[in-house]
């Protein structure tokens, strides 16, 4: 209990602050985009005379409480015309602001410096926001604008290369990222095994990535939170936009159902079948599609309802032998309610699932697996004063895990129907998160999250001698699956295991002057779900498994320190951070572990530890004809799994070597140097150019230290894990956007995007394989690269 006591002073402190507020008035409301009524996230409402201000929340709501008086309010949002309004605080009142998008003016834009000043003084660090427009500008392979590929250009974010799904933040694994689409968890972020991400940029309003200093309202994943909000839909007029590309086409429609009151949005995207299969003339299919839908209804000034949905599928088939379908579905009902002008609430009911299906005709079976969850979430934001805001809420997620079910696909198949044991779990969390400005120079964000995880009873759970599912052979020095000595079945209501964790979070910003600040943060997060994947990037076939009797939850401690500065009145900004992460109970797999269709996964898993540390540097040019950034990351990411504590059996010590002989080894996402450059240049009204360049240290890998022959097989063998590296990865992409002059005179707004991916056709190695050439009988090293130079054209339109 002493850990609770440690936080008591914070609560007393909090209560004492609440007592001071008096003689103050509140204005509140929402900020929307004037032409569509789309709410705007992260708009700054500043009071320059007090050097204070607030930003709008995820639903465009703000609340500002100030001492009685008259103040000038500046409402600013990147890419929109500023609003300056003088407001007298003599009573509580509602004020909604409507902002107009800046016309495409190419003269040097006058920046309101407050935007940057506020960011300088906010304690939130380790966060990157990408404007949807930037995402659309970044040149990508085959011209398909891609949120996740864009994130890779930020410091501290990388992935395993082309055709690799997921992304890695600060040396973390892909399953350690919490990906939220309208607050619903997305379990698989990739289409076509990683070539594209599942988010249709046309339907997206806001993208934010937390790499550290993660506020206590988020939990459940230790590396990062990627929060994506879909647009709500235009409640003023019907609009359509879309695009035609070489891989996929998009179409999105939005419009009012009841003008100014309710709106819908529906967006679809599909890729073309057969595109990737020119080499085969057999009957093959490979395509994906996704559908984004949203309805919103404004009941009255204090109540809003939102219904959002996402449905995506990948379909992949080879003649009649093989069919593979997988994807996410998400349905989310939210209710925004204002209790008062200071108390905002949101209730979310979320259903989310990931389905994977496979049919292999030549073996005679169908296979499906997946994860499904129901999430109830209630979040409150209490705007007590301009210097003090408390967010609190609860969250309960019930999970059903289907590790796999196999069924025969025809009467004459010898396969027997079998359901691998389904698993059930519940994750509850309650949090409080305080945003607190102590003085003009010092502000804090502190909070606490209490998480509680229950693993419920299941049909069959293996029982092992000494509760040990993994045994170690002290002579051969290999870990092996233990043979269960029995199984127990338990009722769903029983608890097989439960975990409770307190997760403190604290971040502080000290403003040295309006241009400079230093920030520091500490974050503890617990992750109860693990993606069973021992490949260097996740595959859709990987299954999620909950913590339980044999698998412990991962616990992260992250420390970060940063220096932030704006230059030339906000034209440039500089962000530098150092971080150190330590993760307990990171799962590791014994050598030769088979994860697919494994009903006793505990037999191949050991709990180890992971750590990562590094330096990140980001210099941005925010304004002008030329915009862009340079990001550099120097980092290290390692893990190790030492032998377990020796037990004594028959007077003999069962010593273990651990995995990789207990040595620290580089994770597959350890990239020593990671440089990304992005630049955008507006030449004139007609042409805009974009470019990016990426350089990364090669991915850790293994080269054979020798080979032997066994029964006609040539078998390479290896030294310790991940001691070698693939060749360095680098690539240059360019694109040019043509906006026809005709646009001025018509409703249809069109643009052409011409892009070249990997301009100098660097053959970056996705892997190097060591094999015996079947024809020559000679051993050789074979480099596999995914993309050489790839030109593409995309046509985008809206009307």
């Amino acid at each position, binding site marked *: 209990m002493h850990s609770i006591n440690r936080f008591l002073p914070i609560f007393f402190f909090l209560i004492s602050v609440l007592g001071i507020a008096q003689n103050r008035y509140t204005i509140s409301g929402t900020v929307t985009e004037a032409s569509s009524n789309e709410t705007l996230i992260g708009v700054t409402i500043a009071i320059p005379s007090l050097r204070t201000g607030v930003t709008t929340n995820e639903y465009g709501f703000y609340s500002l409480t100030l001492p009685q008086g008259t103040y000038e309010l500046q409402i600013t949002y990147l890419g929109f015309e500023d609003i300056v309004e003088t407001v007298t605080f003599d009573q509580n009142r509602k004020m909604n602001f409507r902002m107009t998008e800046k016309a495409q003016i190419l003269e040097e834009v006058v920046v309101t410096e407050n935007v940057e000043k506020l960011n300088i003084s906010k304690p939130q660090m380790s966060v990157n926001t990408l404007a949807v427009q930037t995402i659309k500008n970044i040149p990508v392979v085959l011209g398909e604008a891609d949120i996740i590929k864009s994130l890779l250009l930020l410091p501290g974010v990388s992935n*395993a290369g082309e*055709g*690799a799904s997921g992304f890695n933040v600060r040396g973390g694994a892909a399953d350690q990222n919490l990906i939220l689409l309208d607050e619903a968890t997305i379990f698989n972020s990739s289409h076509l*095994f990683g*070539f594209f991400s599942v988010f249709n940029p046309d339907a997206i309003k806001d993208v934010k990535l937390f790499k550290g200093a993660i506020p206590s309202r988020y939990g459940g994943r230790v590396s990062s939170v990627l929060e994506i909000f879909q647009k709500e839909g235009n409640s003023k007029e019907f609009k359509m936009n879309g695009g035609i590309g070489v891989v996929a086409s998009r179409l999105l429609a939005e419009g009012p159902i009841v003008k100014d009151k309710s709106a819908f949005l529906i967006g679809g995207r599909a890729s073309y079948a057969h595109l990737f299969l020119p080499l*085969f003339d057999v009957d093959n299919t490979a395509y994906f599609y996704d559908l984004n839908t949203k309805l919103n209804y404004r009941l009255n000034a204090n109540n809003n309802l939102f219904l959002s949905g996402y449905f995506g599928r990948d379909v*992949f088939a*080879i003649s009649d*032998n*093989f069919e593979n379908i997988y994807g996410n579905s998400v349905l989310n009902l939210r209710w925004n309610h204002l209790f008062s002008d200071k108390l905002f609430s949101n209730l979310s009911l979320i259903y989310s699932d990931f389905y994977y299906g496979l049919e*292999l005709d030549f*073996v005679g*079976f169908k296979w499906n697996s997946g994860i499904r969850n129901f999430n109830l979430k209630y979040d409150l934001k209490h705007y007590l004063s301009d210097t003090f805001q408390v967010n609190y809420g609860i969250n309960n997620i019930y999970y059903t895990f289907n590790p796999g079910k196999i069924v025969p696909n025809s009467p*004459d*198949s010898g*396969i027997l129907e*079998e359901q691998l044991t389904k698993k059930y779990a519940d994750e509850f969390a309650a949090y409080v998160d305080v945003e607190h400005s102590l003085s003009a120079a010092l502000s804090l964000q502190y909070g606490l999250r209490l998480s509680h995880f229950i693993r419920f009873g299941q049909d069959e759970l293996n029982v092992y001698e000494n509760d040990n599912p993994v045994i170690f052979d*002290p*002579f*051969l*020095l290999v870990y092996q*699956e233990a043979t269960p000595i029995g199984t127990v079945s338990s009722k769903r209501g029983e608890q097989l295991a439960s975990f409770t964790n307190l997760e403190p979070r604290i971040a502080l910003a000290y403003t040295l002057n309006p241009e400079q600040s230093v920030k520091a943060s500490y974050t503890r997060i617990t992750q109860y779900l693990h993606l069973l994947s*021992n*490949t*260097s*990037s996740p*595959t859709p076939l990987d299954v999620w498994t909950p913590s339980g009797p044999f698998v412990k939850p991962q616990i992260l401690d992250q420390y970060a320190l940063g220096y932030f500065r704006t230059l030339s009145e906000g034209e440039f900004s500089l962000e530098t951070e150092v971080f150190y992460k330590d993760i307990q109970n990171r799962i590791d797999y014994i*050598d*030769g572990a*088979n994860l*697919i*269709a*494994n009903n006793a996964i505990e037999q191949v898993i050991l709990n180890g530890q992971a750590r990562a540390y590094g330096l990140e540097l980001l210099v941005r040019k925010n304004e002008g004809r030329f915009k862009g950034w340079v990001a550099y990351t120097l980092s290290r990411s390692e893990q190790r799994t030492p032998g377990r504590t020796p037990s004594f059996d028959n007077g003999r010590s069962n*010593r*273990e*070597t651990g995995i990789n002989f207990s040595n620290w080894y580089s994770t597959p996402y350890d990239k020593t140097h990671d440089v990304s450059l992005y630049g955008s240049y507006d030449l004139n009204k007609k042409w805009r150019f974009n470019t990016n360049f990426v350089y990364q240290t090669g991915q850790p890998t*293994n*080269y054979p*230290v*020798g*080979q*032997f022959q*066994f*029964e*006609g*097989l040539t*078998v*390479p*063998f290896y*030294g310790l*894990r991940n*001691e070698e590296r693939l060749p360095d990865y680098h690539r240059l992409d360019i694109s040019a956007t043509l906006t026809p002059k005709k646009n001025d005179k018509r409703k249809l707004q069109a643009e052409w995007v011409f892009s070249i991916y990997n301009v100098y056709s660097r053959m970056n190695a*996705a892997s*190097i*394989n*060591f*094999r015996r050439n079947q024809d020559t009988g000679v*051993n*050789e090293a074979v480099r596999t*690269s995914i993309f050489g130079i790839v030109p593409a054209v995309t046509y985008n339109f809206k009307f």
Partner: protein
Amino acid sequence: MKRLLVFSLIFTSLLLSCEDVIDVDLPDQDTRLVVNGLIRVDETEPYVPVEISLTLSSNFFEENVPTSAESVLITYEEIEDNVVINQGSSTLAETSPGSGVYIPDPNFSSDQRIPTTTLDRDYVYTLFIRHQGRLYLAQTKYVRTVPINSVRQGTGTLFGDNETEIIVNFTDQPNVDNFYLFDFGFGEYLVTEDEFYQGQEFEFSFFYEDSFETGTVLDISVMGSDQTFYNYMDQLIEQSGDIQGPFQTPVTTVRGNVFDVTDLDNIDVLDNVDQPEVFPLGYFALVQEEKAQVTIN
């Protein structure tokens, strides 16, 4: 079964990728003793075809060379309640000096061959090898298999037109967990366990990457395996195969069941934990083999 599921991943990367042979400087490690001790038994023969071949491992781009041992011996014991109730042994000799191939010594004073009838008893077979001053040891038990009901040629393809489909039908032994190793020739192996077809007549397809001339006779066999050997071969197949791109699993040194016991005195040194780098490669297994043939048309 498990391996077949992996197919989905393998070929997605194949579709877009391009491959080229490159030069790589490889780290060098000292050579290790390699024991090729898979003994495939035909129970209709009077004797177990014991043959152990020894080689030294090499750099990846070089060839393994045969090596001679000071002595090679197989003993077998039947133990009941910690008491040896039956035992025997076979001293092996090199077929010709320097060949590294060891068979029961034909010049020994008594017959060193192991009769097939020995396999009916529950023996533990132990292989001892003294090589360059080190002592190596491996233990195994005999594992039976089931016959192949039929093998026939199919017309299906998986990835391309040039493939040859072979449809294998066999009936799993009921009520026990079985592991099987299929040998399709040309260094093509497949391991499978009966988890999803326990006791069933089971049929599956195997695809050769090449087409064969009409009249070619393909030899296919199935061997029994215990779980440890199944795991070993599974890893061997994976490590020697063509796993592509970002979906490749971590590579490892596949350790067999032969270990270096030179410094194990069972008094001060009770395990190998302090000398993790001292180990030979290869495997010693005694398994039944059932064969079948198919003629390509």
